[in-house]
């Protein structure tokens, strides 16, 4: 490995460490919410579909965080694995495919729609379902387009 590659890998190591810290915070939040949901949930919220959806999403994000933390922790001590992961994240072909599939704007708008859906859900459940369905359809379309371009190039 040359000096430039070593510098890049060192920088990437720092990025992964920061990511692990942020994901740990998210996981902790999910665990706390899980504890609250199991032991301290007020009866009023028990039947709330929106609150259950929120809990489901946050617990799902928590599990995803856990998987990513384990993966990053395994990669960190191994320089070859680090470089492979760095190459994977910065691969020009995948970047081009992601851009064609409308990422990351599609992802950002979908997340905004889900957040808006959760907020508006406390006022109107119909709008909540519509926004969530639209966000998932949007994400699904993005995934299909991405898959098609992966096969094509």
């Amino acid at each position: 490995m040359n000096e430039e590659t070593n510098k890049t890998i060192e920088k990437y190591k720092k990025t992964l460490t920061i990511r692990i810290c942020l994901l740990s915070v998210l996981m902790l939040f999910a665990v706390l919410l899980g504890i609250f949901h199991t032991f301290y949930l007020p009866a009023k919220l028990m039947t709330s579909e929106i609150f259950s959806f929120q809990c489901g999403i946050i617990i799902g994000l928590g599990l995803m965080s856990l998987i990513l933390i384990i993966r990053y922790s395994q990669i960190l001590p191994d320089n070859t694995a680090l470089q492979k992961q760095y190459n994977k994240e910065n691969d020009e072909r995948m970047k081009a495919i992601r851009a064609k599939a409308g990422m990351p704007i599609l992802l950002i708008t979908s997340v905004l729609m889900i957040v808006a859906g959760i907020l508006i859900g406390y006022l109107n459940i119909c709008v909540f379902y519509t926004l969530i369905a639209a966000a998932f359809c949007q994400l699904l379309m993005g995934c299909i387009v991405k898959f098609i371009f992966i096969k094509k190039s």
Partner: protein
Amino acid sequence: MYTRIKDLRKEKKLSQEDLALAVGTTRQTITSIETGKYIASLPLAYKIAHYFGLTIEEVFDLSEYE
């Protein structure tokens, strides 16, 4: 686009994974370039050619653009 990457790799007894690691890309991208499904960017083409100690023209067939 036709490339000589596969032949050059075989001469050096390199796997796609090894080449990908050396030039900073993924094995899938090397496969796509070799099969002509994907056209490498100028920096990647330069890195590949430089890795084999050749020029871009010697690795990639650019005749269709002439």
